[in-house]
């Protein structure tokens, strides 16, 4: 670690692939392929000489065992010089935030001048495991026990049922420590804080409306690099998550998806499985000047937070934003751009309540009163994960890209991107307009 004064970390640009619902346009692509589209688009957009890049850090969650260090495959696949080191980070839904934070640290400390950070995710082709018993059988037969006799081999079959050979293990979607899925936890949170169904559906409608408008106005083009899947004759240019028909009247008719009887969380007010990738070009301010590049923004500070896995699983934004503001001495009112990851409409409303609650501020966040009032006109105005989609490992890159572009358009000085993640981890990054 360098002991010199920390250097300013510039965000030169951010590019992401269009986010697509899993099983659609990126059906045949692996996560690394999506990632390299984003990285290549970023390199092309900034016009930077690839040889200038010092490090690549990418986030991902549902790792494919054949590409465990997916960052390396991404940068090689994007044709970056093989001499650039690359590693992969994973912190559930804030994996890209972690990659960006790590990259910012390297630059601030003088350990790198130019870093590409971001993330990628594909749910179109996740690894599916065979049943645990079948797995045990194969491993014991071929690697760990290797019985020599026929009887020994047959002995391994003891206790196995026919279905064990056929039915795969369900992919783990629950929280390991609690056994609760994210959706179940969102339902609990909504009930605990008294967030009614209609409030959630209204929020979902808001998210879709904003996203549809953003796509129509063309502002998202500044963050998207079009993708042509190999062999296809069509360019994928926009996100296919936002739905014009996602209006309150329709949303409120959907059945609860998790707690079927008394729950309020539905497929309509939750984020959906998404494929996509995003990449950020970070640079020391000096390097940007030397290369004649104009930064869009600076990364001023970041924090991670961690909470109780039962009751505060989805409150990452509240905890991390509170921590970040306290650390930097800023007020919530000074933050002109808020980009918060929308896992569930319930989670968004819950975080807003907690940030605005005097009791919560005092008891949980160590504030004298509430953190601040959330100005909804500053929040996720181009849509969010509920509408644009949520490729776990990539969402943080989208948040940063949108935040930078919104800062430039609005002329506001500060922006915060924040997210919650499995394991009750939160992340918040303070971004300052470079203009």
């Amino acid at each position, binding site marked *: 670690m360098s002991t010199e004064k920390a250097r300013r970390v510039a965000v030169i640009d951010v590019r992401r692939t269009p986010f697509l619902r899993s099983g659609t346009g990126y059906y045949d692509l692996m996560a690394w*392929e999506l990632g390299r589209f984003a990285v290549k*688009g970023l390199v*092309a957009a900034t016009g930077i000489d*690839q040889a200038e890049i010092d490090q690549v850090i990418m986030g991902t969650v549902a790792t494919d065992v054949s590409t465990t260090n997916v960052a390396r495959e991404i940068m*090689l696949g994007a044709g970056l010089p093989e001499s650039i080191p690359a590693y992969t980070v994973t912190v559930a839904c804030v994996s890209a935030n972690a990659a960006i934070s790590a990259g910012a640290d390297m630059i601030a400390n003088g350990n790198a001048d130019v870093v590409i950070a971001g993330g990628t995710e594909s749910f179109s082709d996740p690894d599916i495991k065979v049943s645990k018993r079948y797995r045990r059988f194969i491993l014991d037969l071929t690697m760990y026990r290797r019985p020599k006799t026929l009887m020994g081999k047959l002995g391994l079959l003891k206790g196995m049922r026919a279905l064990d050979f056929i039915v795969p293990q369900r992919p783990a979607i629950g929280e390991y420590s609690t056994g609760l899925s994210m959706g179940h936890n969102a339902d609990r949170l909504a009930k605990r804080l008294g967030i009614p169904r209609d409030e959630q559906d209204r929020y979902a409608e808001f998210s879709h409306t904003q996203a549809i408008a953003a796509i129509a106005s063309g502002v998202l083009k500044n963050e998207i690099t*079009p993708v*042509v899947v*190999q062999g*296809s004759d069509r360019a994928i*240019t926009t996100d296919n998550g936002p739905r014009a028909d996602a209006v309150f009247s329709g949303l409120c008719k959907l059945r609860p998806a998790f707690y079927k009887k008394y729950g309020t969380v539905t497929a309509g007010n939750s984020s959906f499985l998404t494929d996509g990738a995003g990449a950020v070009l970070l640079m020391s301010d000096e390097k940007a000047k030397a290369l004649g590049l104009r930064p869009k923004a600076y990364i001023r500070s970041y924090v991670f937070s961690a909470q109780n896995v039962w009751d505060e699983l989805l409150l990452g934004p509240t905890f991390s934003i509170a921590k970040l503001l306290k650390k930097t001495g800023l007020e919530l009112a000074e933050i002109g751009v808020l980009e918060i990851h929308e896992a569930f409409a319930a989670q968004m409303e819950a975080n807003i309540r907690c940030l605005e609650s005097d009791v919560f501020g005092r008891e949980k966040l160590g504030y004298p009163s509430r953190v601040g009032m959330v100005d909804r006109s500053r929040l996720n105005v181009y849509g969010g994960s509920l509408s644009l989609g949520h490729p776990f490992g990539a969402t943080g890159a989208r948040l940063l890209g949108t935040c930078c572009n919104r800062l430039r358009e609005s002329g506001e000085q500060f922006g915060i991107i924040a997210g919650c993640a499995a394991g009750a981890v939160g992340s918040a990054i303070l971004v300052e307009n470079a203009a």
Partner: protein
Amino acid sequence: MNNERASAVKPGEDRNREIIPLDRLVLSHLKIEKTRDGIALVVIDSPGTRVNKGSSDLLGEIGSMIDSIEGDGTVRAMAVVSGKEDNFIVGADIDELKSKSTSEEVLAYIRTANDIINRIESLKIPVVAGINGSCLGGGLEFCLAANYRVATDSPKTVLGLPEVRLGLFPAGGGTQRLPRLIGLTQALPLLLTAKNVRPRKAKRLGLIDEIVFPYSVRDAAVQKARELADRKTKIKRKRKRSLLTAFLESTRLGRRVVFSQARTMVMRQTHGLYPAPLAILDSVAYGFRKGVRRGIEADCERLPELVLSQHARSLMGLFFAMTEAKKNPHRERARQVKKLALLGAGLMGSGIAAVSVERCDTVLVKDTTLDAAARGMREVWKGLEKRARSGGLTPFERDTLYGKMVPCDDYSLFSGTDLVIEAVFEDLALKRRILADLERATGEKTIFASNTSALPIKEIAAESLRPENVIGMHYFSPVQRMPLLEIIITSDTADWVSASALEFGIRQGKTCIVVKDGPGFYTTRILAPMLNEAVLLMEEGVDPADIDRVMLSFGYPVGPIALMDEVGIDVGAHVSQGLGPMFEARGAKPSAGLERLYEKGYYGKKNKKGFYRYDAKKKKGARRIDREVLGILNVAPPRKSEMREIQDRVSLMMVNEALLCLQEGIIASPRDGDTGAVLGLGFPPFRGGPLRHVDTEGARAVLKRMDELAATHGERFKAAGILRDAASSNKKFYP
């Protein structure tokens, strides 16, 4: 086949040769190590060069080595590998071969070579060849004489017999041993088309016995040699062949069928103009009748005539010109093209992308819509997939190369672009507008290249802010297959710009000629009068199909009429409009026929309306002429015409224009002129190009014919000044 083994050195010969013991043998091309258990490892590593060539020096040393090994008595087996990174032996030493001027010299050279190769074959000890990298021509013939061949699966490893391309044939036993090893039906295509074979295919054919991983070839060859010496393994070569193939290959009647079919095909493709493929067929057939030894002896006697023929001289001249064109005299001035942008993702744009993805970091593919860009990218992807399937690329390399392309429909990604090549519609105003847009979107370091085939670069750059950055890069379609790139520089073009364009073209694997700006530059300019002459002949009443037929027998791969359909009558009309004034000023007004056809909606093959009918069925394999065209051209009543007249009029038009280009300095050298005409326009390769053609025919004879034609047909046949000079001073364009 073993009982047909050729004998070693003839008795009585080389009796006095001194045999040096193996451990005291000092050679410059070969390094020999002997293991304790008597396996000799021979490393071929010619000094001071990146490639091993089958030179007399190397052959001589191999001879001494065989002497020593035979004399040693303790060597039980031999493994032969190369010390070079990416080649075994790349073939005969063409420089050396070309320097031979008498049959005796050639005969002596090929006899020595065959003696050595025969001695390898008849060594009592097993010989294993370990192949990594290109193993071509004489190199492969050497390996064919070994008992066993292992080859690495490196992408650099290719095997083949390219002799036919130089107007020669594999006279080092290749025509004898190859058919016996892999079968007649598989061997003939390799011999006749000079196709290179990758390891996987070679293993399937039985050309190699084993594939090993890179870097292991030495150990593998030595180990295999040891196993063979210990008689631990038997060489099993089982070819899977159908009953029909078996009949065709192993009965005299069957072989007769194969040879007659092959001959028909060769004649159809070469019109009997190329002696080399016919020599190959003769040689293989003779070998099957008389056996390997007599076959090789006949090959030796057959070779000198070919080597000394004008055909081979011309083809070798081209080979040298192409090798020469791979060098960039101003390399140090060149800037690397890391970010390339292509405007227009059609056939041309995607073709250029296909040959560029390996050479750039990023390739922007721009068209008016992103979907249009996507369609271009799909064409590149198809090519990459094909290469990956043949083993030329790994799947990841394929994906990586594809991933270098970024589609776009505006200039927002263009900052930092090193080179922009436009391949949009041939319209001056459009190209100027694009250039203006680009100059706003890019900076000082961005080169703008136009892939125009006729619009003068200077005019495109007329309103440019940075005319020094403007250059012409004229590719030929289909870009992936056509080897020529014509680079056009104007008086404004900066040195670093031309050096960079040339360097990039070379790196794309193109053979480049650098020419000066002017109407039609070089290739289009010399093509236009030739096509014009064909139209004039039609108008005089000559049957267009006859014109094509006659020009095919002159050696063109496509007749001029069919070529106009291929290129597009619209393009032809456009070009003829652009070049018209220049020809008119010389008193040679071009025919207006193409423009009339264009106005009537005849665009050629692309809209199925051309000189030939593309909507009707072929008659006896040939397309029919569209009679309506003749009406539009208002042709005279049919007349018969001498083949000679047509050939002379059509071909001399191009030859004379090439001479004028040389005279005016459009092309810098006869070499460039010939390379461009052969590789870009299909001027008969065995004639070496329009300028070498003058040398071959004699400047005086050509001039005389031009003067005759000028007397009957007018000013357009007025001979170039340098032709007159050459005729009067009896000078040649090539020394």
